């Protein structure tokens, strides 16, 4: 009969333990759910809402371009008659008409738009152009000027107020949007000929304008001051017109665009002919290429737009298809080394001429409308179709516009305008762009790139997580490559060979290493170790070989000692091992420069870069890479064929003689290893030359945009070697402690049995203890792996942070964790960037989860094998 207090304690313990366990599970699940909750929005599709119409009949069939203000309250339409009509979006009520032509002056014949600023250039029938901007000024009304009519407005309700439109905001303020239309003085371009196409490109203080006349003339002119945003600013000062010698045989170009910061002038005709002129030097335009952007019989080019950023052209064709074009490097073009190509293609749209194109001022969203009244909104980079809808009565779309915040789409038909609310969500993040190769602007091929921000607002976000995952793998591989062997060997040595008293001292010291904050390690790595290592690269490379050789040599010398000395001096083995280490490092320092001379033509960093003829020979890389397998092959051969013979001889001689024989075997093996590695390196390096390919040089980065698995390449100060070393230092204590515990927990009676059979302690360790402790050793490595994958501060500080995809040991990388740490503080809440970083966290979470699950599964298998010990 248990006592009441015991029962109470039992119940309390049970409750507490259950509660604790459940809380842990719930906490982990909650983290997962939270991450998932933030990330899921990335994959929601865009939405377009019900249309709101603004009257009928007006403005008729003549609208050239239209737009809407930031708050979606005012719609403007510029007609061919030169009248800018402003209307209240909610009611259709007119806010007045502003003429953009002089009374009795030339007609408006063409409109061009700058892709980055959204400002316009207007072309007239007399061959002149005028810079123009259409915008809105926002003012908030003071409480004392607000009258009763305004005060009665509901939230979001609007009312005409003076020149503008007042709206009650959610916060109860009254915001007035006042249209601001600026029109510069006319400038002659193609005097006497009506302008058929006009384009402008504004950057910094300079504006390039190109205009084509009905007589086929094309002229460029530069305005050296920005066009006025507001009326009171001074007018631009114009340079001399410079003619573009386009062949007049095709007649007047129908479309003109200035792309790539005004360095390319694109002229296009309705038959699909497109001429690209290199106009970086405005005074000497050169025809760079001519191509057909509407191939196929009877297919015509029906519209040409320019995406935000001014790089990607959008071609709309009479067969309903839409293409995205930009220039990529092409050495065969002798004029400027570029070629325009159709990188993105949007097929499967309705087969009707694309007559209107609109671009967003915020992201690479564009909208097209066709003659059958169908409109589509799409994202260029990811080729994702965001929304599509049909305008009323399938009227041809005359003009289309995307609201400044990309939250509405305006369509104009002959029967009026309608506004549809639009939620693009996160079109730049699709499964393909996050995890697949994506073709970004100006790139020669699709790439995996992470570049979440840039100096300008109109840059193209590149959100591929692949380089970050690759960086994480790279960091993990290199640090585990160092940490696992070191930690496991140290654990085996401590558990099996070290004197109990020494062990009691050494183990806490190693565990103390784990208590070093990783930020301190990262700081040391970046500020101290990286610069120091930079000076001794050849010595480091050499030490990788000399230190193990020194240890093995020391062991062989020890074996050659007479038995009486060896047995009596056994406690000196650990200090002697330290001596071997020092000798190995000393040897590396001594022969490092020699190795550099012999292998790397005297300068290892130059060799790593590999771009100078003096270091053209790439076979030393293979030599280094093939050394370890060669050593293994030689060791295997020696164990198979040499050791038994020596053992036969040794049985008939003293320990000393046997030791000398083994020493000779070791020296021979060392030479054989070097020879074998050298031969193999030459063969592998030269093999492709038989087929007249260039030699297999590990330093040459592949140029296909994929990953590059070669461990050699250009040297950076903050590189994987440093991170591998320092992160190895961080994870060694964990692996070491867990592995040592696992080895120590192997039952003593197994060791006794093995030793009783006449096994040496080393044989006992390798054949009995390690296999028995395998599950523990494996978990130790997996815990270390988990830490390496998630480690942040060291890689953040010492890895350089470049999101590249190569395994180059001498270059840096960017990991998922370091990326989150760097970018999350500056990511706009709920933006695509923000959610993508959460996705990175989710990926990290999943990777760790998978690693741990696999570790546990494997551990269970091992454990099953070793049960009932």
């Amino acid at each position, binding site marked *: 009969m248990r006592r009441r207090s015991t029962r109470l304690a039992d119940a309390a313990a049970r409750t507490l333990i259950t509660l604790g366990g459940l809380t842990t599970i719930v906490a982990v699940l909650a983290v997962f759910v939270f991450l998932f909750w933030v990330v899921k929005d990335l994959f929601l599709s865009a939405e377009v809402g019900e249309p709101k119409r603004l009257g009928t009949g007006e403005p008729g069939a003549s609208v050239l371009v239209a737009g809407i203000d930031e708050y979606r309250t005012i719609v403007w339409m510029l007609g061919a008659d030169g009248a800018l009509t402003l209307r209240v979006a909610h009611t259709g009520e007119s806010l007045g008409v502003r003429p953009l032509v002089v009374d009795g002056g030339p007609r408006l014949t063409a409109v061009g738009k700058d892709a980055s600023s959204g400002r316009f250039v207007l072309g007239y029938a007399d061959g002149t152009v005028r810079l123009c901007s259409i915008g809105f000024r926002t003012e908030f009304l003071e409480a004392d000027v607000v009258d009763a009519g305004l005060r009665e407005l509901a939230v979001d309700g609007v009312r005409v107020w003076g020149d503008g439109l007042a709206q009650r905001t959610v916060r109860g303020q009254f915001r007035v949007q006042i249209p601001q239309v600026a029109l510069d003085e006319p400038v002659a371009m193609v005097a006497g000929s009506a302008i058929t196409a006009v384009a402008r490109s504004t950057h910094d203080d300079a504006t390039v304008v190109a205009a084509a006349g009905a007589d086929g003339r094309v002229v460029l002119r530069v305005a050296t001051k920005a066009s006025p945003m507001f009326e009171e600013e001074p007018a631009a000062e114009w340079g001399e017109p410079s003619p573009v010698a386009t062949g007049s045989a095709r007649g007047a170009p129908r479309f003109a665009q200035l792309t790539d910061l005004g360095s390319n002038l694109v002229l296009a005709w309705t038959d699909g002919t497109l001429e690209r002129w290199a106009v970086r030097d405005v005074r000497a335009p050169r025809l760079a290429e001519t191509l057909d952007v509407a191939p196929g019989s009877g297919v015509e080019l029906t519209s040409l737009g320019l995406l935000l950023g001014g790089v990607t052209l959008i071609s709309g064709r009479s067969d309903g298809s839409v293409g995205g074009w930009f220039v990529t490097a092409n050495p065969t073009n002798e004029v400027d080394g570029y070629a325009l190509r159709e990188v993105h293609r949007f097929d499967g749209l309705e087969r009707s001429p694309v007559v209107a194109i609109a671009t967003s001022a915020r992201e690479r969203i564009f909208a097209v409308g066709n003659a059958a009244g169908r409109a589509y909104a799409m994202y260029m980079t990811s080729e994702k179709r965001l929304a599509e809808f049909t305008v009323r009565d399938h009227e041809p779309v005359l003009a289309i516009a995307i609201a400044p915040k990309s939250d509405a789409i305006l369509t104009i038909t002959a029967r009026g305008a309608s506004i549809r609310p639009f939620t693009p969500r996160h079109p730049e993040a699709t499964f393909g762009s996050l995890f697949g190769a994506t073709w970004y602007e100006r790139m020669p091929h699709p790439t995996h790139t992470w570049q979440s921000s840039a100096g300008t607002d109109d840059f193209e976000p590149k959100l591929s997580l692949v380089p970050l995952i690759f960086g994480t793998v790279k960091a993990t591989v290199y640090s585990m490559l160092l940490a696992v062997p070191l930690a496991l060997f140290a654990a085996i040595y401590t558990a099996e060979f070290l004197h109990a008293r020494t062990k009691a001292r050494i183990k806490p010291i190693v565990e103390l290493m784990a208590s070093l904050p990783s930020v301190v390690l990262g700081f040391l790595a970046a500020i101290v170790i990286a610069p120091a290592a930079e000076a001794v690269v050849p010595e480091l490379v050499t030490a990788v070989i000399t230190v193990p050789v020194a240890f093995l040599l020391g062991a062989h010398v020890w074996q050659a000692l007479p038995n009486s000395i060896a047995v009596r001096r056994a406690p000196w083995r650990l200090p002697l091992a330290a001596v071997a280490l020092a000798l190995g490092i000393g040897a590396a320092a001594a022969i490092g420069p020699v190795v550099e001379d012999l292998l790397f033509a005297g300068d290892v960093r130059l060799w790593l870069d590999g771009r100078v003829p003096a270091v053209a020979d790439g076979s030393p890389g293979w030599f280094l890479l093939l050394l370890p397998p060669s050593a293994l092959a030689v060791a295997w051969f020696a164990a198979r064929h040499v050791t038994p013979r020596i053992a036969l001889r040794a049985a008939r001689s003293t320990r000393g003689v046997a030791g000398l024989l083994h020493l000779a075997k070791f020296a021979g093996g060392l030479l054989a290893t070097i020879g074998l590695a050298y031969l193999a390196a030459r063969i592998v390096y030269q093999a492709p030359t038989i087929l007249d390919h260039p030699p297999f040089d590990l330093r040459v980065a592949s140029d296909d945009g994929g990953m590059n698995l070669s461990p050699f390449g250009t040297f950076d100060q903050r590189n994987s070697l440093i991170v591998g070393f320092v992160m190895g230092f961080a994870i060694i204590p964990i692996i070491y402690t867990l592995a040592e515990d696992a080895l120590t927990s192997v039952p003593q009676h*197994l*060791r*006794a049995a093995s030793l*009783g059979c006449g096994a040496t302690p080393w044989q006992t360790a390798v*054949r009995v203890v390690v*296999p028995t402790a395998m599950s523990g050793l494996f978990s130790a490595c997996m815990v270390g792996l988990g830490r390496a994958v998630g480690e942040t501060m060291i890689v953040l500080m010492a890895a350089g942070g470049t999101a590249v995809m190569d395994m180059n040991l001498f270059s840096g990388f960017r990991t998922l964790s370091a990326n989150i740490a760097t970018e999350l503080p500056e990511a706009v809440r709920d933006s695509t960037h923000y959610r993508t970083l959460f996705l990175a966290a989710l990926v990290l979470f999943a990777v760790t989860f998978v690693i741990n699950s696999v570790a546990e599964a494997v551990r269970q298998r091992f454990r099953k*094998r070793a049960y009932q010990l």
Partner: protein
Amino acid sequence: MLEPNAPTAIGKAGSDAKPRSRLQRIQAGEPVETITHEAILAEDPCLQIERFNLWYGPKQALHDNAFVVPRGKITALIGPSGCGKSTLLRSMNRLNDLIDSVRVTGEMRLNGDPIYAPGVDVIELRKRMGMVFQKPNPFPMSIVENVVYALRIDGERDRRVLREAAERALRGAALWDEVKDRLEDSALGLSGGQQQRLCIARAIAADPEILLMDEPCSAPDPIATGRIEDLMQDLRGDYTIVIVTHNMQQASRTSDCTAFMYLGRIVEFGPTADLFQKPRLKETEDYITGRFG
């Protein structure tokens, strides 16, 4: 069982014995000569021990032992718990070396070769001895790999040689018929008694000069115990066996010679029949008749 150095045990033993009995002198730490029957001295010695002392740190565990193991015979070491039987056995193949604080003096010779001389290669020495432990301790590997372990570590790679050695050892340990169809299965899947016979097979696979058994039949299963005892009878003659046991029936059933140990000293050593039928010392008689210990 009473602790030999517990006060009550001393009181009981003392009340029956004459004043200053041999056991009391041992308890007092005085040197006591081993009574060795002449029949033993006539045997061909496989292992000889002279003036052997062993300390665990400051504590002396073996006192001035003199002992011979007759070749081809089964020699049993009996005595109360903690009397040093296992320590003596483990001293024979220097397994006590693994304990840091152990220090020894005196001499041991295996077929004339010194065991404790400086410069002795312990590994080579252990290869000449087989050892079976109290708890079955097969390695976590296959049955056949367990058996050929000693050959493997000696560098034997020839599959045929290994296979033959395994079969011979398993037949020798009377295990062949039970495991011949599952030689590649894990040894840990065998029953306790089978595991112990596997350990015996492992110990005899390398043809040891002497087989050391440390309470090999302590498993509670009487059938398994019987089989191992039968096995020892089979091995008699081919192998020299030293067995530590605290089961006196077992010692009398299975062994040719028996040594009675008490507090680190060999008190009496003689042919098993003599020692159990007509012990020369009253103390031995008291122990084997269960009056103390």
